[in-house]
């Protein structure tokens, strides 16, 4: 009883935060508030809000369109306008949404951007995306180029490059867009709040080390990362949200409960897996249910690190605000090179005592997908755990073949079970 009531609280809060944000955006025409469009990886939410600008994240809108069953239409529209079938469907979904009146996830109209903040972090396609939007909105655009961590480390040169851009380009653009001056003390305050929420988020994600895991760190995880990865990092609301969430999860741990799935609480945790790659949004529940039906819990996922790898210790730092923003951008998951990504997965397998790794490869995203097969093999080799490979797309329902994915998942879990049975019967024999 109490747990459902508690569960509702954080979820309700998140809902409310989002609703308020979008209605503020919708009213911005009257209130005169300005908006900045930007991306999840390498988002500079604190900085944007420092100027009282409202962040809009087209990626989130795209995934919401997928969940609301709108993406097929939007993608279709973009393709009619000349976009190729081959390219990232987030972009097409967003273009289609814009061309259909720019109605956001809450059904309210989104304002046109006053500034496009092109945080080029971990994905090349971002650049094309905003070039396309710029052509439509004819608004100022500022590029923040975040170099790739090609050698698995952040160098002083990279950090300097980013800070230089922040100082010379990004901050002046934000000042121009808002008509306000940059306030570094406020930024320090914001960063303190960020760090606090980040602590709680990490605690929640790490709770999956428990057996049974109280959370699903992929399907559930995408909800948990919502506020911090989007428009709310550094806000008071976000701090409260994560505090509540942490308490709720804490309670589940104490009661020894598993995660709540679309079908209700999970009865028995049969498989613990790590998942690499973003989810599918058009059949999100169906996809989740396929896991839940098999008694599979995702104990760790890389997707929940695209907006920051906080579990590896990074926190926004009030004492070095711009440098820490630079480090934040550099550290987003898709900005890590493949060897590092393999290390992360192997760490997760160990840390969360996982039975195996599943890679969900999406057609859209080269940033994630190119190289996943090599990662898969590498993790299998290093951990000796069974690995599986699934393919679909983010928001293009044409590429989600339920039968195909179910087939692979079933085969995968049957394989894991068969291996486990064999291992246990061997040890039983050995005991005899």
């Amino acid at each position, binding site marked *: 009883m109490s747990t459902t009531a508690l569960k509702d609280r954080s979820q309700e809060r998140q809902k409310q935060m989002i609703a308020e944000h979008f209605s503020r955006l919708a009213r911005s025409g009257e209130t005169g508030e300005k908006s900045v469009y930007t991306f999840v990886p390498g988002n500079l939410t604190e900085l944007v809000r420092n100027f009282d600008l409202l962040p809009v994240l087209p990626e989130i809108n795209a995934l919401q369109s997928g969940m609301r069953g709108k993406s097929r239409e939007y993608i*279709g529209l973009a*393709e*009619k*306008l*000349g976009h190729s*079938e081959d390219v990232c469907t987030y972009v097409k979904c967003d273009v289609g949404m814009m061309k259909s009146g720019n109605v956001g996830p809450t059904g309210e109209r989104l304002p046109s951007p006053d500034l496009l903040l092109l945080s080029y972090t971990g994905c090349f396609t971002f650049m094309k995306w905003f070039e396309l939007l710029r052509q439509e909105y004819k608004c100022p655009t500022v590029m923040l180029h975040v170099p790739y961590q090609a050698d698995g480390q952040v160098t002083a040169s990279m950090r300097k490059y980013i800070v230089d851009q922040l100082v010379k380009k990004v901050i002046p653009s934000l000042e121009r867009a808002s008509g306000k001056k940059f306030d570094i003390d406020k930024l320090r305050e914001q960063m303190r709040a960020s760090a606090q929420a980040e602590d709680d988020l990490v605690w929640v994600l790490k709770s999956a080390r428990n057996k049974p895991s109280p959370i699903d760190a992929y399907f559930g995880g995408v909800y948990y990362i919502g506020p911090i990865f989007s428009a709310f990092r550094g806000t008071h609301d976000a701090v409260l949200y994560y505090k509540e969430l942490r308490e709720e999860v804490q309670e589940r741990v104490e009661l020894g409960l598993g995660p709540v799935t679309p079908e209700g609480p999970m009865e028995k945790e049969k498989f613990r897996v790590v998942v690499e790659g973003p989810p599918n949004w058009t059949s999100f529940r169906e996809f989740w249910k396929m896991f839940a039906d098999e008694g599979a819990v995702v104990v760790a996922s890389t997707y929940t690190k695209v907006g920051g790898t906080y579990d590896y210790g990074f926190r926004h730092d009030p004492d070095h605000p711009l440098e820490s923003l630079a480090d934040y951008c550099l550290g987003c998951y898709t900005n890590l090179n493949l060897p590092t990504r393999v290390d992360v997965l192997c760490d997760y397998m160990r840390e969360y005592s996982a039975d195996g790794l599943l890679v969900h490869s999406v057609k859209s995203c080269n940033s994630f997908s190119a190289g996943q097969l090599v990662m898969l093999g590498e993790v299998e080799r290093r951990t000796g755990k069974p690995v599986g490979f699934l393919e679909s797309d983010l928001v293009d329902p*044409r*590429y989600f*073949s339920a039968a195909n994915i179910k087939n692979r998942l079933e085969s995968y879990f049957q394989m894991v079970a068969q291996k486990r049975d064999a291992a246990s019967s061997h040890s039983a024999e050995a005991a005899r």
Partner: protein
Amino acid sequence: MTELPEVLNVVGIDVGSSTAKVVLMRERERGPAELVDSKLERLRRRDPRKLVEELFEAILADNALRRDDLTYVATTGDGECAAFRTGHFYGMTAHARGALFLDRESRSVIDIGALHTRAVQIDERGKVLGSRMTSQCASGSGQFLENICRYLGITLDEIGPLSLKSTKPEACSSICAVLAETDVINMVSRGIAAPDIIKGIHQSMAGRYVKLLTSLGSSGVVMVTGGLAGDVGLVAAMREGAKESKKPLELRTHAHSASAGAIGAALWGAYRARKLARMGVSLQESLE
């Protein structure tokens, strides 16, 4: 200066991947051209060279003509297999002209054949302004439909009328023709009626075609050509699709839609012949 008579006899030959089409046209310098005769035959794995030769001879014989009576023999498609041709025009060029002949108001053409679909935007002279073809995957073309229907035990002529009977079309999601086949198998086993299956496929094909047209920027009268223009179910689905997309597309077909490529080729042939004559070049020279 080589004088050409007022009336020219020209032949157009369109060799597709499934069907060979041969037409005889009578072209006039001043006045509308006329379609005299047309022959259309499925290749059915026969040697296209031989078949084309046969059809060509047949059309001459039926109209009491000799080869010398023809000013131009134009080919299109895989027309290289007609060794006796005068000249060759590419597929979309030919369909564009053919569509214009079939309906003067055509401003776009969509040619739906056995393997490929192409959309062409044209001006009032038949000039191709832009064109699109379906990508790699063949799931949206005649061959695919044929395979499905063969599986369902439906003959070509029945496809269209059956589709029109559908009340609850079943969406077919697969992009791949092969997987779509399996989808269909699944549908049958779920007890979905044949008309609903066919209509579902028609809708998915129509969706692609409308997309092709709109991405081309078409509006106004669209002539459907190629073999599938004969499929009333598909054309109906395309009309619905066009309406849904809120684009002002008016889809039309013609009894001779399937031969549009051959017709267009023949007419371009006549056009070339006249122009070369005006420039004082004989056809023979121009071929050198």
